[in-house]
């Protein structure tokens, strides 16, 4: 698409000063963008950057705190979603629940119905139109089947079909490629391009530039609710701030070579593990190993499969393949026993007991220890995270995000783990907190022999302490190596 051709026409959608606050948290801050017909704009940002919230605010699913959303000259900000949709918006959801007792065709029909209470008989014309749409998105051969019998990619097609059913001017797409195989990604790219070629304005939300670079005309990169830069994909990828957000600046690394770990058989071995959520494959033949005392980072974007990998190791999910610890297979052992035996996970969502005090949360973690031992462990922990000592009597839910994360890690450490699994500890935290966490991890590594398995999309945070790095992408391990080689060999995928 020729960028200059579109800029002469007035934009179909103009967003000005869009702000969305949830309580004290500002998820989207003063965002502005123009979207022309026949254009694809990518809204890019790491997890927690506010891109999805921005999209929902435009669509009216979340009511904007302030700002304008001007569609063809009319400000629609603050209208409910159904009114905005009727103006000419369609949204492709990442997750959906189709009507399982109705056929694919009937599901598409629903999207075509008027918002009326008196539509009692199906309209022949609508059926024809629904058939046309089904063929249009490649569901022609399965339109009489019911959604539960369809493969994952077809369910995503159904979402596309519903979104474009009423011929919207603006199409919003949330993570178009999540859960799709490479071949399917190509087909879906073509479909989305065809929406553009029909003159629609398309707004894509995704985590990184790379995955949508070939598809978008322009990219708007966001971080912590604000725009960093807008431009062509290659310009954005070259932008210094973008690089720093995704890759960090100069990263100091302190890797120990794998050969320096003396155990002949690694402490933890994950071998050819595959996991499915219904039809979507979340892990595909993943193999990793971790030596005793080693610090291993698993780097991957949101949705790559990190959390699934950790939950599988912790025994929460059914899987094929083997997970072996110290030569013993973990299959069939309950999550509680796995945790007790020293593989302790600090989950992404933290899962603190919000209405208990900091001290009570920690005591629960150290519940199996003798009083004396628990005191010693607590003293050690308070040295690692001094702020927790000050906050002992405070309810966990009243802590700041960074403090909550420290408490979550602290509670995990109270269980005296042999292997500590940290799932995205940096999620949604401000840079200054990251530094504190980072220092704590450095101390943990230097002063204890705890083996750490860290999952991160924030490369800056994941690399400095790592001895070894795995890159997880689309459910597969695509790279393994020491952090020094990461930027050169695998870094490009992170922009």
């Amino acid at each position, binding site marked *: 698409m020729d960028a200059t051709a579109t800029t002469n026409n007035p934009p179909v959608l103009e967003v000005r000063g869009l702000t969305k606050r949830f309580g004290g948290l500002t998820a989207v801050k003063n965002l502005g963008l123009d979207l022309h017909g026949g254009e694809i704009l990518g809204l890019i940002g790491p997890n927690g950057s506010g891109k999805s919230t921005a999209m929902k605010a435009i*669509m*009216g*699913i979340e009511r904007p705190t302030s700002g304008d959303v001007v569609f063809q000259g009319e400000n629609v900000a603050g209208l*409910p*979603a*159904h009114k905005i*949709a*009727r103006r000419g*918006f*369609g*949204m492709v*959801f990442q997750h*959906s*629940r189709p*009507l399982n*007792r*109705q056929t694919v065709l*009937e599901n598409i*029909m*629903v*999207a075509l*119905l008027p*918002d*009326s*209470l*008196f*539509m*009692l*008989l*199906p*309209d022949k014309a609508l059926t024809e139109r629904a058939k046309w749409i089904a063929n249009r998105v490649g569901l022609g051969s399965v339109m009489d089947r*019911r959604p539960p019998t369809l493969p994952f990619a077809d369910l995503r097609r159904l979402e596309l079909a*519903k979104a474009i*059913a*009423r011929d919207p001017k603006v199409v919003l797409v949330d993570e178009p490629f999540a859960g799709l195989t490479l071949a399917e990604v190509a087909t879906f790219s073509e479909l989305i391009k065809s929406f553009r070629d029909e003159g629609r304005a398309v707004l894509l939300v995704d985590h990184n530039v790379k995955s949508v670079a070939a598809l978008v005309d322009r990219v708007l990169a966001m971080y912590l609710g604000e725009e960093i830069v807008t431009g062509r994909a290659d310009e954005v990828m070259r932008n210094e701030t973008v690089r720093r957000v995704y890759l960090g600046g100069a990263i100091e690394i302190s890797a120990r070579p794998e050969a320096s770990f003396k155990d002949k058989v690694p402490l933890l071995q994950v071998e050819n593990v595959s996991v499915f959520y219904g039809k979507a494959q979340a892990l595909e033949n993943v193999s990793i190993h971790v030596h005793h005392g080693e610090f291993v980072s698993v780097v991957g974007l949101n949705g790559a499969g990190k959390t699934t990998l950790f939950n599988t190791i912790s025994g929460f999910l059914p899987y094929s393949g083997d997970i072996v610890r110290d030569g013993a297979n973990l299959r069939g052992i309950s999550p509680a026993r796995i945790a007790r035996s020293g593989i302790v996970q600090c989950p992404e969502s933290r899962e603190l007991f919000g209405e208990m005090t900091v001290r009570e949360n920690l005591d629960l973690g150290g519940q199996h220890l003798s009083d004396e031992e628990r005191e010693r462990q607590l003293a050690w922990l308070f040295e690692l995270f001094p702020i927790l000592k000050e906050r002992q009597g405070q309810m966990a839910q009243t802590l700041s995000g960074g403090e909550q994360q420290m408490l979550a890690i602290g509670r995990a450490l109270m269980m005296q783990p042999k292997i500590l699994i940290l799932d995205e500890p940096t999620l949604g935290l401000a840079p200054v907190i990251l530094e504190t966490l980072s220092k704590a991890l450095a101390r943990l590594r230097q002063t204890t022999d705890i083996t750490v398995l860290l999952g991160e999309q924030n490369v800056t945070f994941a690399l400095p302490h790592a001895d070894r790095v795995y890159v997880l992408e689309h459910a597969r391990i695509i790279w393994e190596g020491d952090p020094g080689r990461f930027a050169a060999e695998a870094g490009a995928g992170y922009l």
Partner: protein
Amino acid sequence: MAGFFKSKLFFFSLAAVIIAATLPFYVSGYVLGLLTVAYYFGVFAMAWDLLFGFAGEVNFGPTFLIGVGAYTAGILNNQYGWSVYLCIVLGALASVIAGVVLALPALRVRGPYFGLTTLVAVLMLQNFVVVFAELTGGEIGLTIPDVITIAANANYWIALGFMTISAIILYGLSQSPVGLVLQASGQDPVQAGALGFNIVKHKLAAFIVSAFFSGLSGALLVFYFGTASVGTVVDIAVGVNVIVAAVLGGRRTVLGAALGAIFLIVAGEFLRPTGELATFIVSAVALLVVLFFPGGFLGAALSHEGR
């Protein structure tokens, strides 16, 4: 929709109605009386399924709607001696109005709070009946001077006809385009909104329809009983029975709800010789069905046919 007339479900339903219509020729008045009540109950359960199965809203207070309809009809007849039919219509309308008054604020709250609001409404109604005993007959119950007819056969056919017509309307509605939108709103409200559907409007409409049939059935029931009492049309336990019937018969099937209601009442009566144990056995069966066949009687059958 057109496919329905060729489906097994249609033939089964048709056969069931025909057989049911001939029952007065060879069963006792006692059985007929039992089934008459069961049919009215069937309408309660179908009306409830429209809300739970399609709008996705758990109404813990079906007896609020039923009770308002029943008592309004009963009181009007008792106080003013208005004609039975007028009272029945007014009862149904009162139920609709009460439903709107309840649903408008309640649909604004999310998740379990809707259910809790409806539960509180039942308790309020129950209290009202007890406190304003002069008007309502209080705990003793309200005597209703008129009846539609005293002939057991006629009463039975009225109930069967009413249930059949209600079933046709409610099932037809559930399978119509409006029903699909309602189902989509119940299943994924965010997406239904983004597809351009005013969810509150559709759910409110469902509530009104549900209230209308609940109230109508409640009013008919009191004119059959000749009395209205908290224990028969308002009590929480009655509401629980309606819910169990609908879930037992199969969520989102409408017709299954009627089946469940008939089963509950007939089975309860069959087991009467076991005394207090009857309720226990019926509850246990209901629990097993819910645990092992969450689709209910008809849900399981339909999913086979759907393949």
